[in-house]
């Protein structure tokens, strides 16, 4: 490292880098590094769950489960998946346009939009005033027997960990990606992702059969608990 490089050394380095020579140890290390990176990224480009090794798949599921448990995994409810509006889509109407279409009015000039906007504001204002002045009893009181929580449906069993593991195994055989996450001694959850192409009807039937009365979705969080719910 102390002697200045000569151009011959540079040439030698590049020859090794090009695989034409094996004299320069340093260039060989760099060549290996670049080739390894190429190999890894090319393999990753074609990666899918099926191409992962068992180790990799297990690690991936563990990490996902850990992150879900910590609240770091972005969970999207299917209903949140809004369709993408094309940038050049001129056929879709805005709010005013939609009202106009509903009223059967053809908007060709800006004056109509102004008048319609004013009308919309008046209607909106009336609704707000009506809502404020109405007595609170109009709202339906919450049902005190409904237990609310973020975990989703809970099934109470004798051995929650065993039940969660059995459920995960059952769902995995049906093609889902089910991961068991132990919460504590008395509770375990199963996070389920249903990949595209999986027969979700069979999966949903299995869930219903096991006591999870859930809506059909491509993502579930199921909880098993040993505690007996209070009436």
């Amino acid at each position, binding site marked *: *490292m102390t002697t200045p*490089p000569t*151009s011959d*050394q*540079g*040439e*030698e*380095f*590049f020859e*090794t*880098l*090009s*695989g034409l020579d*094996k*004299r*320069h*140890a*340093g260039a*060989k*290390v*760099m060549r*290996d*590094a*670049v*080739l*390894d*990176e*190429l*190999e*890894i*990224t*090319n*393999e*990753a*480009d074609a*990666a*899918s*769950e099926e*191409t*992962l090794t068992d*180790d*990799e*798949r297990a*690690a*991936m599921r*563990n*990490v*996902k489960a*850990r*992150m879900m448990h910590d609240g*770091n*995994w*972005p*969970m*999207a409810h299917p209903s*949140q*998946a*809004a369709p*993408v509006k094309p940038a050049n889509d001129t056929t879709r109407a805005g709010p005013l346009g939609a009202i106009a279409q509903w009223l059967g009015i053809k908007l060709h000039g800006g004056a109509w939009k102004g008048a319609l906007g004013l009308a919309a504001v008046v209607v909106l204002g009336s609704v707000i005033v009506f809502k404020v002045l109405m007595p609170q009893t109009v709202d339906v009181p919450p049902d005190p027997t409904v237990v609310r929580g973020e975990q989703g449906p809970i099934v109470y069993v004798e051995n929650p960990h065993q039940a969660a593991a059995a459920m995960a195994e059952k769902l995995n055989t049906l093609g889902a990606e089910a991961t068991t996450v132990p919460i504590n001694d008395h509770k375990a959850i199963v996070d389920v992702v249903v*990949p595209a192409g999986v027969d979700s009807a069979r999966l949903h039937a299995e869930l219903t059969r096991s006591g999870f009365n859930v809506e059909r979705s491509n993502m579930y969080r199921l909880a098993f608990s040993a505690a007996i719910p209070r009436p």
Partner: protein
Amino acid sequence: MDGEEFLRRLRADDQRVWDDLMPMMTKVVFGACYRIGITDERREDILQDVVLKVLTNWHQYQAQSKLSTWLYTIARNRCIDLIKQRARVELSSGCAPGDDDRDFLDTNTDHSISSPLQRMCVEAVLDELECQPTARDGSMRMIEVIRYCVEHGPSSEELARFLNTSAGAARERKSYIWKQLRALCEKHCGHPQCVMDTSGA
């Protein structure tokens, strides 16, 4: 999934993209770990770190490079951090650097690269070239030339055509890249048996 699709789906708030990206991230992280010599359960921690980093910094990705290359850079940096962390601990505890890295790095993996320190150095040099804020374009061009040489094994004339220059200028360019690599390597390790050292194979 390519970079454009990744960004398009995220901008459309399609959070399912993360599920689809997980196999690619796993492959990249496990590949990077294997190269560096990490083959135990720490790979899962690194995978989680990388996923978190990508989740919070995806907007920094501009789709100018392959998505897998960008992920690989993040994974490699994380691995290097881990090695440096370990090296610092060893130094502060009085261990000679390089002597004990065999305890940390699995030497049973089938690497053509012999020394973990050399691996670390070359990873750091490539990383530096990719991340240099100043003269970034020139640095990226250097990486392009290196990759072209590795992938195609060109003669000087072929390299000159790739660089769109004369054979003499290509030779000068090679010499310049070689000096830059040496300087970066010296900066990163300064080890007597440095990666860029001319000692024979």
